[in-house]
């Protein structure tokens, strides 16, 4: 390749410069000596001299080529290109293949540039697509965090178990595009079974059929894993397990347990995604956090429910009933609305208890509580007031309407068939009705009024409703 490139270039520039300078100097000196006009080229006297000067000047110009070619060659050398046959010999002026070689070299360089540009543009496109994917991934992660924050706020704003479970289910379905989801919760009353607390996107007619046994090997395995697990990973080991088969029947895809006090308290079971895609690690992580937040909220709500409801009948306790009645009377005063209250007592209950025992008596109380719940609206508050006495608070209800409800409830209970010692058995109730503001303006006044009418109903033959 070319040696001493810089030296050669400098030498040629000096050569060109000094040669031109000497010729111009000689031109002017001769003109001064011969006393000729300075700028009159080819004057008669000096035309031979001028011709010689021009020839010499043209000869000198050959170096111009070298001045242009040398840097060019240097550049080519720098980029590792070859000149002509690759010997690196400097081309001489007049060489026939000079321009074709130059052209082909430029073309080669252009082709190389073109392929480089293509390669660079491919790399840029690849990087751009990676950046786009990363952007989407981070946007999703930010949205996941935002959702978790939102859900945590939502779950902490209520102690209503239904609201909590619905928030959990709807959020995980919306966040992942899951076709259905259900939440199991441990119920100590149900012999330590995980029962279906709530479900979305799936109709389960008989929820009891899908209860899971907390002491069974399948749930124990979920407990030992302690985190979200894809259902298909359990197939080999639990193919013949009864609980596994129940979930398989529901087409569950992923299970996430919430463990507290060394037990699975809540289990989130989700179906496949609507798009058919599988769950990735981040999504399982998100659902695990959701289940922990929701599980804790559900357990707290359960404790609260236990604190305000009667364990046997699941109706509100007297203390909560009175608090609620005070609140509703204030609301009724503010909005100038009526409110009614029913006091209900089971006729001859002491005799039933004495004859058949407390356990049978309890069955009757549970059955009556069911009738009270079924016979009233969601907005009413049925409560176990004490012993065999019940009460129902009916906001925004006139006494006439309350009387209709009382009569309906009385008839429902009268017709209800209980099985006591394997034999059909019937009970009746007496009911007293009172209303705000017609019968009193405070909770105590209304309770006293409903109570005195209840005893009127009792003393006038039982199994009846008294409104005055």
């Amino acid at each position, binding site marked *: 390749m070319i040696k001493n490139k810089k030296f050669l270039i400098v030498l040629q520039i000096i050569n060109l410069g000094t040669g031109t300078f000497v010729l111009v100097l000689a031109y002017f000196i001769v003109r001064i000596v011969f006393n000729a006009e300075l700028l009159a080229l080819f004057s008669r006297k000096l035309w031979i001299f001028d011709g010689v000067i021009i020839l010499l000047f043209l000869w000198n110009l050959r170096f111009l080529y070298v001045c242009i070619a040398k840097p060019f060659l240097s550049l080519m050398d720098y980029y590792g290109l070859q000149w002509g046959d690759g010997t690196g010999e400097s081309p001489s002026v007049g060489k026939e293949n000079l321009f074709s070689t130059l052209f082909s070299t430029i073309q080669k360089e252009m082709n190389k540039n073109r392929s480089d540009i293509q390669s660079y543009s491919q790399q840029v496109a690849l990087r751009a697509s990676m950046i786009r994917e990363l952007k989407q991934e981070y946007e999703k992660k930010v949205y996941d965090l935002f*959702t978790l924050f939102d859900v945590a706020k*939502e779950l902490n704003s209520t102690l209503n178990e239904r609201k909590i479970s*619905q928030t959990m289910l*709807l959020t995980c379905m919306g966040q992942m*595009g899951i*076709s259905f989801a259900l939440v199991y919760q441990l119920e100590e009353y149900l012999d330590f079974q995980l029962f279906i607390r709530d479900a979305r996107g799936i109709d389960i007619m008989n929820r009891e059929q899908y209860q899971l046994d907390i002491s069974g090997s399948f749930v124990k395995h979920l407990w030992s894993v302690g985190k979200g697990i894809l259902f298909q990973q359990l197939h080999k080991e639990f193919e013949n397990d009864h609980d596994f088969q129940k979930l398989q029947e529901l087409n569950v895809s992923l299970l996430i347990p919430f463990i507290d006090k060394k037990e699975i308290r809540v289990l989130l079971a989700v179906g496949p995604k*609507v798009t058919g895609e599988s769950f990735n690690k981040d999504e399982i992580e998100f659902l695990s956090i959701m289940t922990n937040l929701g599980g804790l909220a559900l357990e707290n709500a359960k404790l609260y429910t236990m604190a305000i409801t009667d364990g046997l009948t699941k109706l509100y306790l007297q203390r909560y009933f009175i608090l609620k009645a005070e609140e509703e009377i204030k609301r009724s005063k503010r909005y100038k609305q009526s409110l009614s209250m029913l006091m209900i007592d089971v006729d001859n209950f002491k005799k039933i208890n004495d004859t058949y025992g407390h356990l049978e008596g309890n069955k009757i109380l549970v059955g009556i509580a069911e009738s009270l719940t079924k016979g009233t609206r969601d907005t009413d508050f049925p409560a176990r007031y004490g012993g065999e006495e019940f009460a129902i608070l009916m906001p925004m209800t006139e006494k006439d309407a309350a009387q209709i409800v009382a009569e309906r409830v009385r008839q429902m209970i009268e017709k209800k068939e209980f099985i006591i010692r394997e034999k059909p058995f019937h009970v009746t109730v007496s009911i007293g009705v009172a209303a705000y503001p017609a019968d009193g303006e405070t909770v105590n006044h209304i309770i006293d009024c409903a109570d005195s009418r209840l005893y009127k109903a009792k003393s006038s033959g039982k199994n009846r409703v008294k409104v005055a």
Partner: protein
Amino acid sequence: MGTLEITQDAKTAGSKEISIIHITGSLDAHTAPQLDETFSQLVQKKKFMLIIDFSRLDYISSAGMGLFVGWIDNIRNNGGDISMVHLKPNVLKVFQILGFNRIFKIFDSEKEALETFS
């Protein structure tokens, strides 16, 4: 805490009756039960072709999105579909982030959505 208002009307596409549900305000875990009730009533009446007008919906949470996913299988299995129209940019962004634009048909106008049902 946002509120949600729901109004309904119906239009025809060919010989089919399409239910248009206009939702206003905010669709989240609090307000989702209202829309859930509307879906429930429509499905009971065997109305499975639905267009949701989002033009006055300012906010949607994942729980709100979950409501649509929870109904879509039921509605599609009955030969219907849910189309979404007039999504505001912030609402559309949520659809895109969660990949719901691959699950639901989203249109700029009610007319386009009606055409797909005809």
